[in-house]
């Protein structure tokens, strides 16, 4: 199996390191500024392109892995579908419903496989939590707090037109996960505080099954507090709790440094990409197809609209 990666940033590095060890060869990488420094750093012997279209036309790949800013997804999917290339998209599928629908239509028309990287579904803790018996769902709590993501090229995370902003880029992890666990959501009420870069927001959810949930997402944490997540699923016959902070599986200290890490043999990214590659090989469906990703995007956009309007919003009402 051969993959071409579009993008040479943080997420491209994360995916490349997941492919290392899988039976997947990174055959080509495209980045507008030239991916050579990335290839060297990652120790990859892949063909370098500046134009993803050229990559799709010339490289011998089984799928294109799109690790570029969210606003570029639609055009990259068009390029992939024009060249008959299957595609894996980092989440979120797109910053707008319109672009997401175009993506869905493009891959459907071309009869290609498209998966979207809602990686939390492949976090083993979250997967196990979903499987735990808790009776009738009651209240779900999901938090995801981090400093502002300053690794984006041209600071694209700060450009809401490009990233979609906090709910569409960050909270969507938990919105998608909770929707996967407890089904569709009828209404969302959200609040948000932000300046030019930092932003912190919350959204309450009322699921169609009657359960209540809430997500809290932050790109406003101090640099000394790296990404922390928290999950709680409470039902009438049980409770599941998970916190990512202070992992205890692997810890090491020296005079200058300390390490606290999970010890999972396979990262959630690796598990996610393995599922996609297996699906491609077997002709099965990827875990998250565009329609699923769109449903989660709609939920994130509902939170965004609610925070703007100050009133609850139904995801079904979101049309743009």
């Amino acid at each position, binding site marked *: 199996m051969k993959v071409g990666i579009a993008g040479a940033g943080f997420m491209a590095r994360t995916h490349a390191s997941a492919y290392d060890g899988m039976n997947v060869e990174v055959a080509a990488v495209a980045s507008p500024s030239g991916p050579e420094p990335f290839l060297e750093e990652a120790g990859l012997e892949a063909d370098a392109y500046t134009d993803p279209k050229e990559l799709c036309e010339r490289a011998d790949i089984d799928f294109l892995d799109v690790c570029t800013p969210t606003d570029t997804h639609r055009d990259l999917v068009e390029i992939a579908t024009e060249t008959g290339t299957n595609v894996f998209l980092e989440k979120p599928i797109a910053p707008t419903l319109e672009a997401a629908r175009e993506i869905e239509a493009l891959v459907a028309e071309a009869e290609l496989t498209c998966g979207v990287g809602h990686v939390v579904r492949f976090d083993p803790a979250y997967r196990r939590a979903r499987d735990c018996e808790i009776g009738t769902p009651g209240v779900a709590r999901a938090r995801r707090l981090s400093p502002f993501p300053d690794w984006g090229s041209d600071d694209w995370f700060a450009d809401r037109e490009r990233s979609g902003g906090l709910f569409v880029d960050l909270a969507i992890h938990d919105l998608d996960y909770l929707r996967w666990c407890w089904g569709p959501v009828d209404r969302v009420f959200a609040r948000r505080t932000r300046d030019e870069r930092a932003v912190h927001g919350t959204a309450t959810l009322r699921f169609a099954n009657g359960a209540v949930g809430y997500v809290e997402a*932050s790109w406003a944490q101090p640099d000394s507090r790296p990404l922390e997540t928290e999950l709680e699923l409470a039902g009438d016959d049980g409770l599941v709790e998970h916190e990512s902070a202070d992992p205890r599986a692997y810890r090491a200290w020296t005079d200058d440094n300390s390490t606290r890490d999970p010890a999972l043999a396979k990262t959630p990214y690796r598990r996610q990409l393995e599922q996609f590659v297996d699906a491609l090989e077997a002709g099965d469906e990827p875990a998250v197809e565009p329609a699923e990703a769109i449903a989660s995007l709609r939920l994130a956009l509902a939170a965004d609209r609610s925070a703007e309007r100050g009133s609850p919003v139904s995801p079904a009402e979101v049309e743009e």
Partner: protein
Amino acid sequence: MSVRVGLLSAAHVHADAYVAALRELEDAAIVGVADPDAERGRETAAHHDLEYVANADDLFERIDAGVICAPNAAHREWIERATDAGVDVLCEKPLAPTLEDPRAIVETWRDADVAVGVAMPLRFSEPARRARRALEAGDLGSLWAISGTNRGHIPGGWFVDPELAGGGAVMDHTVHLVDLVASLTGERVAEVYAEVDTRFHDGAVDDVNVLSMELTDGTGFLLDGSWSKPDAWHTWGDATLEFVGTDGTLAIDCTGESITHTVASGEEAGVHTVSYGDDPTAKLVADFVAAVREGRAPLVTPDDGLEAVTVVEAAYESAASAQPVTVETQSGANDPSDG
């Protein structure tokens, strides 16, 4: 001379903790227990080796102060009787259900020459006190968002009787953190949106209590005060707050200082949490007794209690309408930052 204290109803589960806290104080003496439910009153009195006083008026004549552990709906009557008798009281929270009762209590209290305190032990929590110092020092810069939890087991008895409690989890588990946040920030809740339901048990009152609030300065305040913890959970519940500001984040866990105790056999078999932190209830009771002795107001007074209940009633209104509800301040309320 000791402050003579009576237990005014033993309905509340905290009654035992108040008796224990009072017994720790050198300047307080417990005189007896009054309770319209004679069986309950006698049982509590016997349990603590106290006298059960069948007629509350008799007890009023023998005490300087009382601790009201009655169901919420009976708070007003107890406070009115105590003030008529010139007895200072510490009343369990919430002050009273509905807006009518707490407003009447505030009026009674203002007109009477007695001290009335409301039991908000988290004001005395050491983690909260340290947070107050950090917030007052401006460590967080401008405040953006607050996230709190006050989950718990589903209580039994009158707590799940809508007539006696005035509501469920929203009534029981909102006021602690709403009061604490108002006190710590100097702001009050200006708007509340509530997702409320009954999903954890079959009772007549709500147990899902998820509130999305906004303070008067625009700070968001998310609070989960659901009765969502199974009885088998390792402790009664929690009380946490996290403040996100432009210059930093601060998180407190008011019950965070605890050890884990596994009981191997018997009725208590299982995993339990044992607190080793400072006991806020002891400090609450000490403040009340000192207030009685010194003729001053306790730290938390009925106007604070009324403000918190106003948020509760607005939450129920929001849940009924599925829309955010503006919370009107109650006239004459003290600046919450006074505490």
